[in-house]
């Protein structure tokens, strides 16, 4: 399995405060990988660095073998990385349909591309709300829309930051099921969330960040076997 995304010794800072201290991580095509850790440990910063929203101070990021660190966010987006950001950040002034259509693309010639219809079939709720302004959606619907919007770009790598944060249990479950389906279809995914138990079922491998450094990496089986790790790095 060749690495789709390869991060080495990534360092990122906001002004005078450094957040990442040499994060290394690799994701192979078709893999689902999680990024775990408590709040403020650098998960979102890692994701923002990958997407070009934050310029790294050191280290390298390769995607499909090409260096992408330091490139502009739109080039990285077109290269095939799509982000479902923390807090959804759907466009409140665009209709649901427009949120999806605006970014529809199949730049890499995926044989069975995501289209509006396919997203609607995937999230029937969005089809019902197609003509509603994004800002009027509930939290769960917004998350579906954010995922759908990312899928419309037919990305090689889908990144979800806080995939189920702030959602009601039933909605949360629906999001998980989506990830299951996407994984089954071969989509490469990097996901950040807190529900370790559920993530163990969804993902192949896990990475735990603590104060800007990778402190543990392993497979789902390994994480499942050692609940002590949860409590050390993730619990209260």
């Amino acid at each position, binding site marked *: 399995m060749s690495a789709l995304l390869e991060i080495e010794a990534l360092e990122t800072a*906001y*002004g*005078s*405060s*450094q*957040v990442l201290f040499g994060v290394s991580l690799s994701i192979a095509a078709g893999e689902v990988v999680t990024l775990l850790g*408590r*709040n*403020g440990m650098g998960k979102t910063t890692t994701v923002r660095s990958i997407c070009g929203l934050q310029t790294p101070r050191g280290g390298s990021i390769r995607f499909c073998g090409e260096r992408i660190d330091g490139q502009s966010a739109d080039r990285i987006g077109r290269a095939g990385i799509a982000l479902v950001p*923390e*807090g959804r950040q759907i466009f*409140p002034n665009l209709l649901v349909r427009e949120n999806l259509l605006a970014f529809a693309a199949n730049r890499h010639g995926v044989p069975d591309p995501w289209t509006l219809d396919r997203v609607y079939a995937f999230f029937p709720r969005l089809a019902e709300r197609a003509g509603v302004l994004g*800002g*009027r*959606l*509930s*939290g769960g619907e917004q998350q579906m829309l954010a995922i759908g919007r990312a899928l419309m770009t037919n990305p090689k790598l889908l990144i979800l930051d*806080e995939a189920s*944060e*702030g959602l009601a249990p039933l909605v949360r479950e629906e999001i998980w099921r989506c990830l299951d389906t996407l994984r089954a279809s071969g989509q490469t995914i990097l996901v950040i969330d*807190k*529900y*370790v*138990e*559920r993530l163990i079922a969804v993902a192949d491998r896990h990475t735990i960040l603590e*104060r800007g450094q990778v402190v543990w990496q392993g497979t789902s089986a390994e994480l499942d076997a050692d609940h002590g790790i*949860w409590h050390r790095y*993730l*619990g*209260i």
Partner: protein
Amino acid sequence: MSERRTTLLEVRDVSKHFGGIYALNEASLVLESGEVHALIGPNGAGKTTLIHVLSGALPADAGQVIFDGNDLARRAMHERVALGLARSYQITNLFSRLKVLDNVTMAVQSRVRDWGSSFSFWKPFSLDSAIVDEAHDLLAQVSLTGLAGRRASQLSHGEQRCLEVALVLATKPKLLLLDEPMAGMGPEESVRMVELIEHLARRVTMLLVEHDMDAVFRLADRISVLVGGRVIASGEPAVIRADHEVRRAYLGDAE
């Protein structure tokens, strides 16, 4: 902690929504004077919103906040500070182009009850030596004495967080709202900050919002857990640690 304590702050069913999303949903909370009360919860739970509502930066949509016997509903931010309610910021929020000492003197000078108002147009500030002396005292308390002449922007992140605390302290608050004082700090800096807060805890009541659980369990007398804009649990650290709901909220435990 057996002495009788009086209620300093009472938050009653406060709600705040942005568009269709509730950031605070009938949140209630009681703080007793003298305690360090930690507020924890996942991202987006409404912690910072609650701090904003308490400090007056955002108006609440519903509910009541009683501080030291005063209903805060219609009080502007600066009036709340005068009552003794001061806040720090999650993202460092200083006078970055000013010198460290001037940052603190600005904060000290704000106490109208001690110095009178600042509508003084002619007398040079350099004659207000009492204010400057007090500022030096405060800098000593947060161990920034040697850096008084630097610009705030030239300080390291950890030093800036300490300066932030000094600014809040300078207003001589009865209640200190500390919003993630350890955010973005390295390990050593965190330790220093914990020590500083521990030191302050003897003098002032605190509401501490923090993600660093080690720090929270070390510092807090009581902990409230905010999830989905609602306080789901409130109690002593051991009780919270064992609380089923809290574990679910934090770990997704399906036990």
